[in-house]
């Protein structure tokens, strides 16, 4: 089976890190990601089934891994070698449980149920799958999600295995493009609901990549009525942000002034703003870089909240303002079960399905590549914004071996 696989290699990690500094996505050529012919993963146990990926998205966290920029934090909760790809729409060849054969979306978190752990941990019991405390235990190797675990395989290949609890049926009339957006949408929905925006708040969404745009859409659909100010660098992002529900879209360097005016805040500095006295009620950081976190802390009001939806790493940030202004800084990872403003409890993935359909999020998949062109695919994904793209995915539907038994 053809697969893109991450292998543990100190030398290649170092090379990827250096290459990525020269060009984003540069890690693809020299890094630990290689196109290999490997055996398809074996079924790890009861409830597991083989699926055939159709489309698999390339996500920001994947890019960070390829460029060897992700934190060493992940080392104990992934297992090498692994096949990446956690945003997957796949074919389920045979029915399993109540699920008929057909297209499925994988909910990749590898919680207690998938690991054969019984009784499940408290988080899993509550339905907060993303917070599972057993992601390095049980019947399969450590791995926070499919696509980071050596036992499950991942979407960037022609075959992988999934637990029946991870599978969500895709409606007949959906395109594969729409379906592949469900997983990232679920992340955005979770982030938005975790932020718990109050009515009339000003919410700044940093970043207008896929995650940022999905966050805007999720805010509009599931958040309380609020003012959304999006930050977008590129014209396509700008238009999409407006289309998905942002009230205003500003360029990154315009943000501070725009927030100042929108909040009627005063500012320190003689015309050039050194610091705002007030700021936005919420900042949702969908970038997760040092710069974006700094920016978030500088435009949020005292006692405001910064929610990090984009994956950060090790960053160097001055937290004096956080202390003095009593800012809440919180993370929002993955998904599970949400409490809507109405009090209703829903699975995040169900909400994501609803949102993808309502906001026609399938349009965010800009381009697909076969596995063989993975270097081009990774480069495209790493420079998506500047090239007018949002989501890049691997298209496995035409891979030859896919039909081989």
């Amino acid at each position, binding site marked *: 089976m053809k697969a893109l696989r991450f292998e543990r290699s100190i030398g290649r990690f170092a090379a990827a890190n250096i290459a990525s500094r020269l060009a984003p996505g540069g890690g693809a050529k020299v890094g630990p990601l290689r196109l290999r012919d490997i055996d398809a993963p074996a079924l790890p146990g009861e409830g597991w089934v083989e699926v055939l990926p159709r489309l698999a998205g390339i996500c920001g966290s994947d890019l960070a891994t390829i460029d060897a920029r992700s934190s060493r934090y992940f080392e104990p909760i992934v297992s090498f070698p692994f096949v990446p790809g956690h945003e997957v729409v796949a074919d389920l060849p045979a029915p399993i449980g109540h699920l008929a054969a057909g297209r499925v979306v994988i909910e990749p978190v590898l919680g207690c149920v998938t690991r054969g752990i019984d009784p499940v941990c408290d988080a899993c019991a509550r339905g907060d799958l993303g917070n599972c405390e057993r992601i390095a235990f049980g019947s399969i190797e450590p791995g926070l999600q499919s696509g980071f675990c050596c036992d499950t395989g991942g979407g960037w290949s022609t075959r992988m295995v999934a637990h029946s609890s991870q599978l969500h049926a895709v409606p007949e009339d959906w395109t594969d493009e729409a379906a592949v957006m469900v997983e990232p949408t679920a992340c955005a929905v979770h982030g938005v609901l975790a932020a718990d925006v109050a009515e009339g708040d000003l919410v700044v969404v940093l970043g207008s990549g896929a995650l940022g745009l999905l966050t805007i859409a999720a805010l509009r659909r599931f958040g309380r009525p609020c003012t959304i100010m999006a930050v977008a660098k590129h014209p396509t992002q700008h238009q999409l942000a407006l289309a998905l529900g942002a009230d*205003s879209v*500003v360029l990154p360097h315009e943000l501070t*002034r*725009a927030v100042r*005016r929108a909040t009627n805040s*005063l500012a320190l500095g*003689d*015309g050039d703003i050194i610091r705002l006295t007030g700021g936005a009620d919420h900042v949702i950081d969908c970038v997760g870089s040092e710069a974006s976190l700094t920016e978030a802390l500088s435009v949020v009001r005292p006692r405001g909240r910064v929610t990090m939806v984009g994956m950060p790493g090790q960053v160097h940030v001055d937290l004096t303002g956080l202390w003095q202004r009593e800012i809440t800084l919180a993370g929002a990872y993955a998904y599970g079960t949400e409490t809507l403003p109405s009090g209703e409890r829903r699975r995040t993935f169900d909400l994501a399905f609803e949102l993808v359909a309502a906001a026609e999020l399938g349009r965010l998949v800009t381009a697909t590549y076969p596995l063989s062109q993975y270097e081009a695919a990774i480069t495209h994904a790493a420079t998506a914004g500047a090239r007018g793209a949002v989501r890049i995915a691997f298209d496995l539907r035409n891979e030859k071996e896919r039909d081989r038994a």
Partner: protein
Amino acid sequence: MPRPGFVLDVDRSTPPILFHHGEGFRLERLPAGRSRVIYPAEPIEPLKNPDAAIRHALVNPIGDSEPLTALLKPGMKLTIAFDDISLPLPPMKRPDIRQRVIEAVLELAAAAGVDDVMLIAALALHRRMTEAELRHAVGDRVYDAFAPHGLLLNHDAEDPDNLLFIGTTEKGEEVEINKRAAESDLIIYVNINLVSMDGGWKSTATGLASYRSLRHHHNVRTMQHSRSFMDRHASELHSANWRMGKVLKDSGVKVFQIETTMNNNVFGTEGPMSVLQKREWEWSLTDRISMAGMKTALDLMPQRTRRQIFQNWQAPHAMTSVQAGEVEAVHELTTANVYKQHLVPVEGQTDIMTMGLPYISPYNVNSILNPILVACLGLGYFFNLYRGKPPVREGGVLIMSHPTPWEFHPVHHPSYIDFFEQVLSETTDPIRIEAEFEKSFAEDEWYRHLYRTSHAYHGVHPFYMWYWCSHALQHLGQVIIVGGDVRAVRRLGFKPASTLQDALEMASDVVGRDATITHIHNPPILMADVH
């Protein structure tokens, strides 16, 4: 004997024509047979003895006014208001006209035993003047005598404790001006009338007014009904100010108006800059060398240096008249004297008007000509320098040349940055802008703070710049900027072109192939008298 302005018909032997282009120049060949160039008059003769002329004007007032000597009495409260940094352009060589006039006034006040004297820079919503700028305007002697005692101040249109509501005009316009001035026994206004728009009741009713009062005539409707605002009798802006003047007068505010005019000798008659006020076919070898040298040197310099060089230029323009007394009578005479220098008779309108925008406008002295000011300089000021009808026909095209950098002076123009980033990105329609955005900018606490304590233009000022353009925006079919920053030009809602040829090509889509072209050779300033 200085030669009057005139209109040149461009033929095949016409040399390339000078276009100002910010801190630089372009030499452009205009199409023969269908182009003409309007040249300003040469600088008219200045007064031989300006100080004597001032003293004479003060004791021989015009209109219904006593001589100043009779108006000054011991124990009286006297306020001397004077025009701010926006006049004249460029700033003049020392001594400034204001210094001459103020010293002459104070000499008389001292002789009359007047003790309570206050000097106020009548800057309306402009930025506060710095010490150096005030020293330049009123001279070191006056500055040192008054400023240390807090008797030389910048007007503050946002100081609730120092504004006085006077009344409303018959059209419901509120009149509110500087309290100290309003409560004085006499306001002496010291004016420099660079262009015909300045002066008259606009001095007091605008220069010393509050935002509450100004908004009644600084708005889109007024500007669209001022055709042009350079022609006082066809200007709604002036009618409103005159109505306010009447309210002031009726309420007992007494103004002794001193107005001065100056010639347009802005680049001197010798030195490298002098070539800029000569006619191209009369350029001597020295002129051609200095033009070539200047262009080459400027191209090599970084923008900062270029700006510094130009902003440091002090013009040798000289006073051509001074008249004092009752506001309206004085202003009639002043306007006539301004016209003597500026008016150039022009026959009929044209399809395409071209102009080279220089480095300076009233709002960027010692500062940066940001994109909004570029628009205002072209569409506000230069476009409106006409009497009768605009030199370009309705639906015609205006081509302006300016680098239009996306650059702002953060201290002077903080609200301009936000206007450009947050308002013009939404819409360039003055009516929508006024309705949707003006209030929030005008009442913004931070802008107010910067206006009152730093050197920032008032928060609402960029709106006025845009309103100033509204008559032109309504009249023109298209606006093209040659050689500008493409993004900035687009943000203004204009079309960018890299060369004049391209711009003319683009214009032909609007006005046809054989469109007539008129180039306004300004500065030195001229005013087209179009029949």
